[in-house]
């Protein structure tokens, strides 16, 4: 684990990380009841601190929506939703081969 938390939406395909927290302000820049409900739902789906997650797929042009694997389940999230999830990257800006290494490492721990 390296560096400070980044929004999940910034991870590339194949990159993985560990959730450090949820940030409502990242979602709509406010703390309305609506965004609170969305955060609560993210938490219910398993986006809680300590959960390991991996980006499985991203749409072209900005990764909206994207697909995340977390806690054995897979979810499609909009970019705005994924932006509210703070994660610690497994590696800073990995090269393609580093991604493979990271995946092997995560496979070994499961």
């Amino acid at each position, binding site marked *: 684990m390296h560096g400070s938390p980044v929004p999940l939406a910034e991870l590339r395909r194949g990159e993985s990380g560990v959730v450090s927290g949820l940030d409502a302000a990242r979602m*709509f820049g406010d703390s309305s009841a*609506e965004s609170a*409900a*969305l955060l*609560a*739902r*993210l*938490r*219910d*789906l*398993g986006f*809680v601190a300590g959960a390991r997650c991996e980006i*499985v*797929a991203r*749409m*072209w042009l900005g990764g*909206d*929506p994207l*697909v995340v694997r977390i*806690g*054995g*389940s*897979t*979810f*499609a*999230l*909009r970019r*705005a*939703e994924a932006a509210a999830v703070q994660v610690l990257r497994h590696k800073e800006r990995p090269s393609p081969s580093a991604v493979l290494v990271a995946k092997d490492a995560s*496979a070994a721990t*499961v």
Partner: protein
Amino acid sequence: MDTAVSASPLRIALVGVPNCGKTALFNRLTGSRQKVANYPGVTVERREGERAANDGSELRILDLPGTYSLSPTTLDEAITRDVLLGRVADAPAPGLIVCVVDAVHLPIGLRLALEVKRLGLPMVLALNRMDVARRRGVKINVERLAAELGVAVLPTVAVQRGGADALIEAIQPGRWAAQRNVTVPAWQETTAEDAEQTQSDLKGVLEAVGYSAPVENPWFGRVDRLLLHPLGGLMVLAVVMFLMFQAVFSWAEAPMDLIEGGMAAVGEWLRGSMSEGPLRSLLVDGVIAGAGAVLVFLPQIIILFFFILALEDSGYLPRAAYLLDRLMGSVGLSGRAFIPLLSSFACAIPGIMAARTIPSWRDRLTTIMVAPLMTCSARLPVYALLIAAFIPDESVGVFNLQGLVMFGLYAAGILSALLVAWVMKLFASGTLYSPLMLELPDFQWPNSGNLLLGLWERVKIFLSRVGGIILALTIILWFLSSYPAPPPDATGPAIQYSFAGQLGAALEYVFAPIGFNWQISIALVPGLAAREVAVSALGTVYAMSAAGDDVAGQLEPLIAQTWSLATACSLLVWYIFAPQCLSTLAVVKRETNSWRYPLIMAGYLFALAYLASFITYRVVSAWA
């Protein structure tokens, strides 16, 4: 046996997250003894079934909509919470909750179970998909889980015969007699502290039961790499959709010929064995020519539903929703609208009802408004008839020309839906954010038992339509086409002097510019009640127009001779929009709780249908 006990059946509610196998378990518990209705006031589907308990009393089993949490974000999820709290009229709070948890994905289901348990209602936990969990190396100490939760935990395999026996034993009314009169639980909104408490409880229980996550199936990852690829995934989706429509046309051919032959034989036999008179005319021209003409399309409808149900069961549909989210978002729809819209290919009514799973009201409204543009199976008979009559059965490369035209008609419906949604977006004010947060479930082979049960449900609905509304309308139309009888000095066919003939002549003024003759104009009227009746109405009208005994038994060669290509194309295009379905409009009224939207829908569909048919008729006339 205590009669008071059998008078008040134990009410059992199945609760669980989406994709936990809850409905398969419900099927296992109730078999075919189930009925589908709506909750009062809303159109959330209410699945209820019965099962005889060991003591002879009834178990009433309710399959509640799947939810991740008791803090709802959609209408569906709100219903689940409200039924549990006894807040829904006609649905008293259940005497026993069966919380269904997918053992493969224990954490997400267990979190909901902890939340439900806090309501204080009697509860057992069904630990479902145990077979898959074992295969994938999931470790759960079941005894410990029961001890931690303080409820009975029953391992189940819903898709296996006998896979729910332990659960069935646990839900016998004798065990729950004390709880027959349940006090409705009090409800407090979940606070952030509650949520955190649940999370830490969850963590504790997972550790206590020695839970280990499932081994990843390497194939799922590989398949998803293709299916979720921005380009490759869309190509696979296009191929799947295309194969589906080709199959609807080519696989159905043999059974359709069989039904058609059977109908013709019955008609001939009746004609030969009965004396000339109104009753013979009613049976042969009305019932057989009319309702029989619709029955022929049963095989195509079965094939279409087979694909939809199998795709749903396999876990593919949410992936398609993900792929299309961006595209659909650009015209103001959500990717979540894909599943309601795909159901609309079978019938717009369940499609419009499925739109309730879309959290944002505006997305939901747009989905509802464009759902009728998806070519429903009721339009299939009309398309199939016209294509068989006017489009040559030739090969174009590897494809069949008739299948291609059919695909084109479906595509035209989809494109107009995108266009209408885009126009609606222009009129909408502001840009509201709507969530996606869609689970992509693990792939699985569709379960044949559940598939057959789903198909059987659809066949029943179709047959009851043929035997009910379609038959009734056909008989009314036969009556209107037979009376009053023509004057003795009449020269033309008798139907021209009847009520229907007069109505058709009047409507012809409206429809002549788009190439419809009076027979088509008449057929459009009963088509208001059900679109496929247009075919049976044409069958009856043409059977009645023919003089004496030389009635052509087959509608298809008859229209092929008498209609121009331009008229046929115009009618095909008319049915892409086909505004005439009263039950769809009634459901829209109920869903949106206002007359405004059904009226707008009827208006815009009629305008589009007329305009498109007018252009088609003029263009084809000029060319042909």
